[in-house]
């Protein structure tokens, strides 16, 4: 049996959302918790670093208004809640309506070599042009957030680092930053610099994979092989610092697990800086090849209104300046760097930004190694404080937000929102009206990390 909220309560909630929207707040996170017969929902909004919340409690089986009226970017976060808790949102029935209309649907996925992760697309097409789209997710769901509850910090960290091969390190790092913030832990400077280097290495790897996937979708096999060569170079370089190219099991509370000798880190840098030439060559070839420029420029256009509420390269390619590194606890402020933007967000500008971000990561690694201080890499700590916090960090594809609540060193509540949750609701808009053979290119230019989005 469904319970509708009274019109007055609905109106109040919608009024609050619009009040935040009109005062320039962005939607940061939506999380829910099940209580005795009730579901508690918390909406987090952010403006210039200030975080404000709307907390509501509704009976189970309630039907709530959808936040997509005011914030379309909240669609995926809301869907996650509807999938996990006995609650529904008003606009969620539209999925079912679309499915019924799909008489002659073309299905793509959930498993396909050109799809990096499982997801099912149902399209209706007329003359190879896409008419309607329904995207079905849920093939990645493992219930990781629930598994983390009741676990010690080290156990939860082990799981979170394995959420995604491309962003696992950033998720683990953001989680540790949250724990350290609650417990007021000061991480030694050398450890912070090492964390920064590894973080940038993880961005570099994610961006290289992103480029290699895009080249595969475009059918540029020789460039694909060049990029695989660069990934091999990355693996070779990282082997000087750790045995694990995915950078798992490096982080510990209060620092990093093991120190890396200066000699090893210099060797790593020498090898990794060889990439600059390779990346610049590929970029130059792409920029001067009209067929690539024309094809990519005509695809995946995102308007500036959408870009403003999005994150990562989707936003920056449309001229929205976003520097998430400045929010980080890592010593980025000691390094000199500039984040690039473009004027129109399409597949080409976003691809060019990937190249620039790779070069930026290489430059930051180089600077951090030059400034690497001596000293300890682990602080002795005692985590016994209770509390909660929201941490915002950069991941390879945009902004990552973690809500964490701790009690005596045990996780009592956790919610992770990665960049894909913000970008995913706009994918359908972008795919409508394009040719069916262009789908893989657009999806890969959106850089969605489904493993970390669905968890």
């Amino acid at each position, binding site marked *: 049996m469904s319970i509708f909220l009274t019109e007055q309560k609905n109106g109040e909630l919608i009024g609050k959302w619009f009040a935040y929207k009109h005062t320039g707040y962005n939607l940061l996170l939506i999380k829910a918790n099940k209580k005795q017969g009730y579901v508690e929902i918390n909406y987090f909004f952010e403006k210039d670093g200030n975080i404000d919340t709307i907390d509501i409690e509704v009976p189970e089986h309630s039907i709530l208004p959808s936040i997509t009226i005011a914030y379309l970017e909240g669609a995926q976060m809301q869907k996650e809640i509807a999938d996990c808790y006995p609650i529904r949102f008003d606009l969620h029935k539209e999925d079912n309506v679309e499915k019924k209309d799909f008489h002659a649907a073309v299905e793509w996925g959930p498993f396909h*070599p050109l799809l990096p992760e*499982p997801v099912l697309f149902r399209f209706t097409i007329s003359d190879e042009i896409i008419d309607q789209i329904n995207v079905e997710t*849920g093939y*990645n769901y*493992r*219930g990781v957030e629930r598994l983390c509850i009741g676990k010690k910090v080290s156990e939860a960290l*082990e799981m979170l680092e394995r959420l995604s091969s491309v962003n696992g390190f950033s998720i683990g790092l953001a989680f540790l930053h949250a724990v350290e913030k609650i417990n007021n832990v000061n991480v030694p400077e050398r450890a912070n610099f090492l964390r920064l280097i590894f973080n940038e290495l993880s961005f570099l790897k994610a961006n290289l994979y992103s480029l290699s996937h895009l080249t595969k979708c475009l059918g540029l096999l020789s460039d694909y092989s060049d990029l695989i060569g660069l990934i091999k170079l990355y*693996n070779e370089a990282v082997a000087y610092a750790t045995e694990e190219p*995915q950078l798992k099991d490096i982080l510990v509370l209060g620092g990093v697990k093991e120190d890396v000798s200066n000699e090893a880190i210099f060797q790593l840098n020498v090898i990794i800086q060889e990439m600059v030439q390779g990346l610049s060559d590929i970029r130059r070839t792409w920029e001067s090849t009209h067929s690539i420029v024309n094809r990519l420029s005509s695809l995946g256009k995102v308007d500036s209104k959408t870009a403003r509420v999005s994150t990562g390269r989707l936003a920056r390619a449309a001229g929205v300046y976003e520097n998430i590194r400045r929010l980080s606890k890592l010593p980025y402020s000691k390094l000199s760097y500039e984040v690039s933007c473009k004027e129109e967000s399409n597949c080409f500008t976003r691809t060019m930004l990937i190249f620039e971000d790779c070069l930026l990561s290489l430059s930051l690694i180089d600077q951090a190694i030059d400034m690497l201080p001596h000293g300890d890499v682990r602080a002795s700590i005692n985590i016994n404080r209770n509390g909660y916090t929201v941490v915002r960090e950069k991941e390879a594809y945009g902004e990552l937000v973690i809500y964490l609540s701790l009690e005596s060193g045990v996780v009592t509540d956790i919610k992770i929102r990665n960049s894909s949750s913000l970008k995913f609701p706009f994918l359908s808009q972008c795919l409508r009206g394009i040719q069916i053979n262009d789908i893989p290119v657009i999806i890969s230019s959106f850089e969605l990390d489904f493993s970390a989005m669905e968890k």
Partner: protein
Amino acid sequence: MSFADLLNKIRTRSISVFVIQAGGCRGCVDALSMALSEQNTIKGITLTGNPKHADCLLISGCINEKSKEEIMQIYEKIPSPKAVVAAGACACSGSLFRRQGNQLYIVEDVLPVTSWIRGCTPDGTEMLETIVRAMENVKNKQAKGERDKN
């Protein structure tokens, strides 16, 4: 040589693999695609997007209720003899994510597994070797079954 033997001989020339990345970090699939792109001693393994063209099904990641049905459907569409390879800790044992009653399955719960590749993340070359050996095993078993029948 029977027609079936001839077909089998032709199919041993190359192996088409249908890769299923179930819920996981996709590290295993990345390692496999790296190994396939490198200059390797093992050649002749290709990826396919069509189960009807596949000889081997390689599954990585934890399987949930939703992906279970799809995986079983894909398995049915692959022509025999077919091998099933479980790659990575999630597919072999559920890794850190599998708990009693949380509706996550390992490959063995869903399909008959020919070979397992353990580790998080397993080595790419090891995966290629295992695919070759799994196909050999399947074909040897089939040949033995036919001999026993005769």
